[in-house]
């Protein structure tokens, strides 16, 4: 049997059980069947993917560790010659002349692009509903949201359209959709992976991550993605590690000596009681693996949503100023002045949520409000990071649920921004502190997946992945497929 994971496909390709072309054709068939309902892709590259697959099969392609495996990139990563929209009308016609560093490095590892995945516009959203290309739906229940903003990547991996996809996480945009779609979502430390070529939302928070079926697959992708990039000044000056090699050997008591802190502030009001139960089962599993589980407090954590919704809009208001209709992207015709060109192009090009955040961001940076909002938020962000640092003096890893509840219905929160923002309450803290963190499938509520989140010290990617991998060796939640979905290659 061929396991539809990067590790499984590597074995199957190496053992000659399938060819890259067969794998790519299987993915494209599935995309054809399922994508019309899921809307996980903005752009498909079937023809070029098949060409790449044939090249891999004939040994003409680069022979990297992921050679012959098709993957999807979130439509926020620039891909040379392939339209890159960031889910926005304003970039509907934008074809980048260069590859993002992440895209380049994963291509060097041997992967090739099968398509660009749908997302909340400019990654601003938690439901993949703010996309100009329509909402993405959750393969576990088509009336529900897959989460966001990397909802297209999450849905595509969850439904077996691709074995793995990239995502970006600014406040939870990888972990939350992974949790709601029953897959593994990994966000490395801020600075671990280059942001070059990733269309910026909030520069001090944006981080490239992955949506995969397992933590092992996340490690395989990170092996290639991580490392310094001289084109990104915020990228850490430290070489990447062999993360996948650090996953083995793994004994039955793999977490012996690992101290895990349950974040007290996550466990209060707002957490669905059924999710609370799932989480307490998760802790029992980790204890069974040898981990010492205790409770820790991050007193400033309740400030994180407020801090985030000052810092992120401030940065976005400036980052999105370049979309002005002058050099690329949408340009409304008929403007009779420069100001009209700006207001008409930006008014027609940006959706409501993006406009809202630009306005909020402009406001908090403006004269007379800067100190009260932006500066205060930066101070609070530092205090919050200190809370995390203090917690890591007594524990090695922090744990909590990834979301307060399983997937919500499409349309349920889209008209209530505050409710939507609160869905990220458990993921924003680690993003503000720049920590490596992962969400793994950890249970089921009403037939919907929920996630367990693990957060590590800065640049402790290997520890986080190892802990998640140990958990997955012990559990089967990550092996479940949505109702009506079979594992590719399973039926034969």
């Amino acid at each position: 049997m061929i396991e539809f994971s990067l590790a499984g496909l590597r074995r199957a390709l190496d053992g000659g059980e399938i060819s890259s072309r067969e794998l790519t054709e299987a993915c494209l068939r599935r995309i054809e069947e399922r994508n019309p309902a899921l809307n996980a892709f903005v752009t498909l590259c079937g023809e070029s993917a098949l060409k790449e697959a044939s090249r891999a099969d004939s040994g003409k392609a680069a022979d990297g560790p992921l050679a012959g495996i098709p993957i999807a990139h979130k439509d926020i990563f620039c891909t040379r010659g392939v339209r890159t929209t960031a889910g926005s009308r304003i970039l509907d016609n934008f074809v980048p002349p260069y590859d993002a560093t992440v895209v380049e490095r994963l291509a060097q590892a041997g992967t090739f692009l099968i398509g660009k995945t749908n997302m909340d516009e400019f990654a601003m959203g938690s439901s993949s509903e703010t996309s100009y290309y329509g909402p993405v739906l959750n393969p576990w229940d088509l009336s529900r949201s897959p989460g966001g903003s990397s909802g297209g990547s999450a849905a595509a991996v969850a439904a077996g359209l691709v074995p793995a996809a990239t995502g970006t996480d600014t406040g939870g945009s990888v972990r939350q959709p992974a949790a709601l779609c029953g897959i593994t979502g990994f966000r490395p430390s801020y600075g671990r992976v280059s942001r070059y070529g990733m269309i910026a939302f909030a520069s001090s928070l944006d981080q490239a991550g992955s949506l995969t079926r397992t933590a092992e697959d996340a490690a395989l992708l990170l092996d290639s993605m991580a490392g310094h990039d001289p084109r990104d000044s915020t990228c850490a000056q430290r070489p990447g590690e062999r993360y996948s090699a650090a996953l083995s050997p793994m004994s039955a008591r793999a977490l012996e000596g690992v101290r895990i802190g349950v974040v007290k502030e996550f466990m209060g009001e707002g957490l669905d009681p059924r999710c609370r139960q799932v989480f307490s089962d998760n802790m029992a599993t980790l204890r069974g693996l040898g981990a010492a589980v205790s409770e820790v407090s991050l007193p400033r954590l309740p400030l994180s949503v407020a801090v985030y919704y000052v810092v992120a809009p401030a940065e976005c208001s400036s980052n999105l100023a370049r979309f002005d209709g002058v050099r690329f992207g949408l340009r409304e015709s008929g403007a009779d002045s420069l100001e009209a060109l700006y207001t008409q192009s930006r008014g027609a090009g940006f959706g409501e949520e993006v406009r809202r955040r630009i306005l909020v961001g402009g406001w908090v940076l403006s004269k007379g409000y800067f100190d009260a909002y932006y500066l205060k938020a930066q101070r609070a962000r530092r205090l919050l990071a200190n809370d995390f640092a203090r917690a890591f003096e007594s524990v090695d890893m922090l744990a909590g649920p990834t979301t307060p509840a399983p997937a919500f219905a499409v349309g349920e929160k889209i008209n209530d921004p505050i409710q939507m923002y609160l869905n990220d309450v458990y993921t924003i803290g680690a993003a503000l502190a720049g920590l490596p963190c992962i969400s793994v499938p950890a249970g089921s509520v009403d037939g919907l997946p929920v996630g367990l989140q693990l957060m590590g010290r800065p640049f402790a990617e290997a520890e986080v992945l190892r802990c998640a991998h140990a958990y997955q060796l012990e559990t089967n939640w990550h092996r479940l497929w949505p109702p009506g979905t079979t594992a590719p290659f399973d039926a034969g």
Partner: protein
Amino acid sequence: MNLEAVIGLEIHVQLATRSKMFSGAPTVFGAAPNTQACLVDLGFPGTLPVANREAVAMAARFGLATGGRVAEHSVFARKNYFYPDLPKGYQISQYELPIVSGGAVEVAVPGHAPRTIELTRAHLEEDAGKSLHDALPNATGVDLNRAGAPLLEIVTEPQLHSPEEAGACMRSIHQMVTWIGISDGAMQEGSMRCDANISLRKRGDPNLGTRTEIKNLNSFRFVERALRCEIRRQGEVLRGGGAVAQETRLYDSRMDATRPMRDKEEANDYRYFPDPDLPPLVLESGFVEELRHTLPELPGARQDRFEADYGLSAEDARRLCESRATADYFEAAGRACGDMVLAARWVTGDLAAALNRDALDIGASRVGAGELGALLARLREGVLSGKLGKEVFQAMWSGEGGADDIIAARGLKQISDTSTLEGIVDDILASHSDQVSQYREGNTRVFGFFVGQVMRATKGRANPAIVNELLRERL
């Protein structure tokens, strides 16, 4: 009403780096539009800035050279506004924490004692592109060659009190940035531009009046002319009992007047905040110390040394230190001939006049320092008279060769052989007996007449000292 002007300058100096402030694109002046811009300069989605180390080192050199504090920790900030020649919708600059604080420059207006003008700060930033309003029919073009070019913005304290002082201050900063090699100082290419803040107040009033800012003055002359106009305009407003409006103005050189900028050219809230794409700029103290050791002898110190060691006048020393190239030229020529005073006279005299006539920088001089030195050596040795020296210099300037070649080819070598000259002197005295009698009767002024006759007979080649001696003996 006795009014006093209070002027402060913001001077933008383009740094002479090989690549731009935050990208690897080159910074060649005068290239075809948009050929010196890469994806970062075009503000393409996903691109990121990387600070240019060379520019950072140059800014730090300026701080060290002017006695300012070079910050161990400074911060790049975004200045947000929309304009088509600003591709990202913000300019990366430094705001609250600049790389250089404080410092001072010496400002000398000819005929006045030099004054020390304090500097507020100097910070790094990127330039914007250029809007081309006349390049296309019915459309405005944008040339982004200059977008991202590295600038050092130098801000002076409001301590200048006349247009002449402001012009001299700009010259002094021009001298310094070219002296320490951080800018080519090419004014005609826009390598140095100035915004001037100006207000008037009653003389003796400690409070400042309302100021206006005159933007984008790109020559020393325009700074002075624009300030003269603006002082006149503000003076008329105040004397008429009106109030000066705080505003930004432009200088129209054709009309020789300033006018307010249109509202749209001026944004009022730039929403500055630290650029999250660029970590704080941290300079290790070792790096700054190393830079300190690479600084050349600075203009002030060199001027003092010229006066003390070579016995030059303050004015000559100042002129020779107007640029480092001139000072280097002078010292090389002086060493070559062994007479610093003579070299100073020639460099500030005939050489300066020739350079000026042909509009050349001293670096492009048609006569090199060594060559001039060789000519001056012949003058010192008495091989050549001063008058013929000028002739030889002009011949050298026209490319006829070195001093000795020209002296030989033209037969200009001075006649110092006493017996030859004796014959000539005797002939002249014999054929001018009237003048001889006049002299002997006490009219000593005719002495010059005899010298002139000898020179005429020798085509100016006679050694004047020997001629004088021979004439005196005989008369």
